Structure formats: C-alpha cells, structure tokens
C-alpha cells in the first residue's frame, strides 16, 4: 500500500496534536444532587488560598473560574473587592481556614453587616497550583550573520491540582467540594524555527472546574 505524503503529514500532525491534550479528572462531593439556589440579589465570591509558604493560588486562575461561573447567570463579586471591603479579615494571615473560625468571625456584627451589605451568600475557596513535574530533551539555538535557527526537542509535563470548597455564609456550613486534577505534556520542536506544541493544562483545569462549579448553583 502506498501512503501519500500529504496523508502521512496530516496523520503525523494529528498524532502530535492529540499528544497535546490534557487529561483532566474531577472529583465532586456534595450532600445533595439538588443545585444550590440563589435569589437574584445574592452573590458568590471566589477567593484564592494564599497562606501556604511555597505556593499561592494565582489570581489569573481565580478570574478564569469566576468568568466561567458568571457565564451561568450567577453574580460573582470580584475577589479583591471583597477582600478590601472586609479588610483585614480575609488577608493571608487572618482568613478563616475552617468553619469554626468563620463562625466566630460572623458573630462580629460589623463583619456580618458588611457581608449582608455586599449580598454575599456563598464563598468559594480555591486552593491549588500548576507545577512543572518533569522535563526532558534539549534544544540549542544559534544566530550568525547569515541567519539563525534552533535544533532539538524539549518536553515538559505540567500538573494542575485545584480544590474548591463552597461555604454558605448564611447557614455557616460547607455545601460541597470539588477537586480537579489536570495533567499534560508540552513539546518544543526546534526545526530551524522553534515550534511550540503547548498543552493548556491550567486552562483545562479552569474550564472543567468552572463548568462544574457553575452546575452547583441555580438562580431563581
């Protein structure tokens, strides 16, 4: 059988591109299948955990998840606006790590009044990071009077692990948890010009987590 060069190239491209997709797993826990019902005035705030020493949940990821959830008619209060409005009780040093501390905070009338004034009903904590777990290959680039170019091959693996915890600020209980694990390998092929084949691991984690979180809520 004779393989035509165009088909071979297309096949090769498909194999390479399929190698650039991330594998994403979502684990979900919630006490009921029913969505959390929000009335039209109630809002949700999504906050990143920033108390760990070696990583902090990046704002870009929070914004990405917020955008996904907002697209489902759920009103989201921007993270920094909430943190400033309730200063200093959600700074890395003071933010409640568990429900007992949240309950103590909400017993303070000034804090409760502020949360009510902002119409925040649910708080979603996002905790996690994206890390490069392994890398290999080598690439060298050179430039001279006649031109330049790169030759070689490099690859790296990325792993995104994020956990979302939903707190009800009215009933002061946990409403559910979500965990997303997304991993994938990116490649850089040096064939005169460097050709990046990037796997959107973090973006995949954001899309999956955002869509799943959106399904947690329904607006009356």
């Amino acid at each position, binding site marked *: 059988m004779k393989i035509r060069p165009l088909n071979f190239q297309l096949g090769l491209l498909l194999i390479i591109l399929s190698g650039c997709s991330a594998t994403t797993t979502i684990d979900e826990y919630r006490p009921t299948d029913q969505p959390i019902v929000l009335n039209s005035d109630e809002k949700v705030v999504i906050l990143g955990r920033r108390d760990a020493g070696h990583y902090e949940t990046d704002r870009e990821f929070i914004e990405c998840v917020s955008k996904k959830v907002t697209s489902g008619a759920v009103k989201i209060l921007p993270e920094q606006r909430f943190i400033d409005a309730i200063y*200093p009780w959600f700074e890395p040093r003071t933010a409640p790590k568990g429900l007992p501390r949240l309950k103590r905070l909400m017993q303070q009338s000034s804090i409760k009044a502020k949360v009510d004034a902002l119409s925040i009903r649910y708080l979603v904590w996002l905790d996690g990071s994206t890390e490069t777990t392994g890398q290999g290959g080598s690439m060298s680039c050179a430039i001279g009077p006649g031109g330049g170019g790169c030759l070689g091959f490099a690859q790296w693996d990325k792993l995104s692990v994020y956990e979302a915890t939903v707190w009800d600020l009215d009933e002061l209980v946990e409403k559910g948890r979500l965990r997303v694990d997304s991993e994938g390998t990116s490649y850089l092929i040096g064939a005169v010009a460097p050709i990046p084949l990037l796997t959107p691991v973090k973006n995949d984690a954001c899309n999956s987590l955002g869509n799943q979180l959106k399904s947690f809520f329904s607006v009356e």
Partner: protein
Amino acid sequence: MKKIAGLVLIVFLAGCSSSASVKISTAFPSVVSEPKPIIASILIEDSFATYVGKPNKNTTIDIGASQVNLLKSAFSGLFETVDFITSLDQINPETDLIITPSVLEVQVSTPSENYLNVFEVWIKYNLEIETVDRTPITNWFMPAYGKTPDSFMASKENAIEQATVIALRDAGAKLMLDFYRIPAINDWLSRQDIKQESR
C-alpha cells in the same frame, strides 16, 4: 526605527538593573471592626512619617506616608477615640494609652537569594505602649510579611512594591488580630475594668 530599537533596548536593560528605589503610595482600605471604648494617642514621630527603608545598598523603600495612613485606619478600628499627634505636648489628658510606633528594620529577599520564584519583604515594627502618665505597659515587636505571587516578567521595582504593599496590609491585619492578645495589654485592660467597676 532606530529610535524604537534603542527604546526597546533601554526598557530591557532597565528591567535588568539591580538597584531599586520604591515609593509606596497605595491607599489602604478602612478596617471593619468594633473598636473598644478606649482613648488612645498615637505619637507619629517625624522619623516614622518619613521612614525610608534601606534593606541593602541597592534598594530603598519609602514607606513613611503609606504606613502612617495604614496605622491611622488600623488604630481607628481598635479604639473608639484616637488622636494622632506629632509631639507629646499635644496629648489629650483623658488619654488611656500612648502608642509610639517605630520601624526597626526592613528586609528584602529576591529570587536569586531565596531560590524561590518570589520577592519577599519583611517590615519589623515596634510599638511602645504607655499609660498617660508615661508608665510603660509593654514594647510590642510586630513583624509583617509580604511576598509576590511570582516574579515572572516583573521588574525588581514593581515586585518589591507589590511585596511591600502586601507586607503593609499584613501589618494592619496583625495589629487588628493580635493587639488585644498582648498579655500586658490584656492585663492592663482587665485592671481598667476593675477600676471602672469600683467607681
């Protein structure tokens, strides 16, 4: 075209410079709290209001004005009545506490020093706390810490500014969280309650 190329080169080289001079002019949010019925005088000395930290020979951080703004907001959340004074002769005779803040040290750590992809800033404060008759209650050491999320594509000046703002916010949080937990303050407060009850 040459001008643009020159400008681009200057921008790149500026990003690589090892010295940084930062002035913090960020506004801080007002605090959410329930102040106690205490009258306090906060003595803001000139050296505090104009403080410029020099963590190393290449770095200066002007935090004077912003730390005054931050402490004004934080102390107003701790005490029902707060007077900010610049000298002792302005003290209100009905004052319960006189607090004199000072900066002991500012430290900076860069990615090349800490082998992390972050800039870190520590501000070490001391609060000298006295009664109105100048009897010392305590000297409270109050460290504050801030770090950037990462240093990717950030200039040294921007990164240090960002970390310093976070450290200043942390100072406000530390003050609000821990002031009434200082054993000497707790003890002083309980004695005030006894005095009021015996009146």
